[in-house]
């Protein structure tokens, strides 16, 4: 089962209340943290909340989520892998 990148990007924008950016402007492989979108540690925690709320995925340990949060692509792959059936 695939996950539409546009859908995921929209959820990222909405849950993090990013302004002046459209899903089309977020590159699938651009870094989410540090450079790229410039998200910080609070955003990482908010994405964990979003994953549970929108996809039913519980990230027990933030370290588990770290590699998944690298880019939109890695996050999408994580969701597809972990999403409850």
């Amino acid at each position, binding site marked *: 089962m695939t996950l539409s990148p546009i859908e995921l990007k929209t959820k990222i924008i909405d849950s*993090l209340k990013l302004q002046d950016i459209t899903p089309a402007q977020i590159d699938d492989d651009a870094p989410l943290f540090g450079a790229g979108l410039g998200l910080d540690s609070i955003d990482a925690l908010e994405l*964990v909340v*979003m994953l*549970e709320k929108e996809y039913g995925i519980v990230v027990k340990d933030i370290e588990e989520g770290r590699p998944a949060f690298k880019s939109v692509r890695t996050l999408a792959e994580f969701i597809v892998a972990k999403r409850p059936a």
Partner: protein
Amino acid sequence: MDKLTVTAASRVTAADLATARLGSRFGRMDLFSQLALLAVESLGINFDSLARDRVAICLAAATSSLATDVEFWKGRDAAGGLSPTLFTYTLPSAAIGELAIRHRLTGPNLCLVGGDALLLAEAADLIRRGEADACVCVSGDVVSAALAELIRVPATAGASALFLQRGGEGPHVLRENDRDIASWCAVISGAKNLG
């Protein structure tokens, strides 16, 4: 005795936020922080000409962060649980953090709840004691509809800011036993826009 000058003053309301563009993370801030940032932006201060560690930030929040507190607590049973972002802003002094980050101000900080009338005297004292050379003063209040119902005060959303400097050039000098401090506080919490 040092001459202290109010070099700029401003007032903003929630309506002014519609066209505000103050960084990509502006959207995640609580309303009070957004209003504070916009009010300070409207002062038009060139912070580059100042020593950043000598500029203080003084804030007065009439109803603390209660509007955000209510919003945060409302999410307690939501899927995914409480929002870490909202929790970060359940402090009236969060606006100080955002102001400091945006303008890279590392000087002294003060945040009072309900201290609107005291703010200018405290800012003047900080400068006179030599703890700072200038002070960004912001006084505001956010009462959401939900909070209004809870604590039975009228809903509101607005902030006023002024910049107080040692020396400085500006329309208004604070005199030592300045009985006009009260009227300056009226400017801070009232509707007048200067210059």
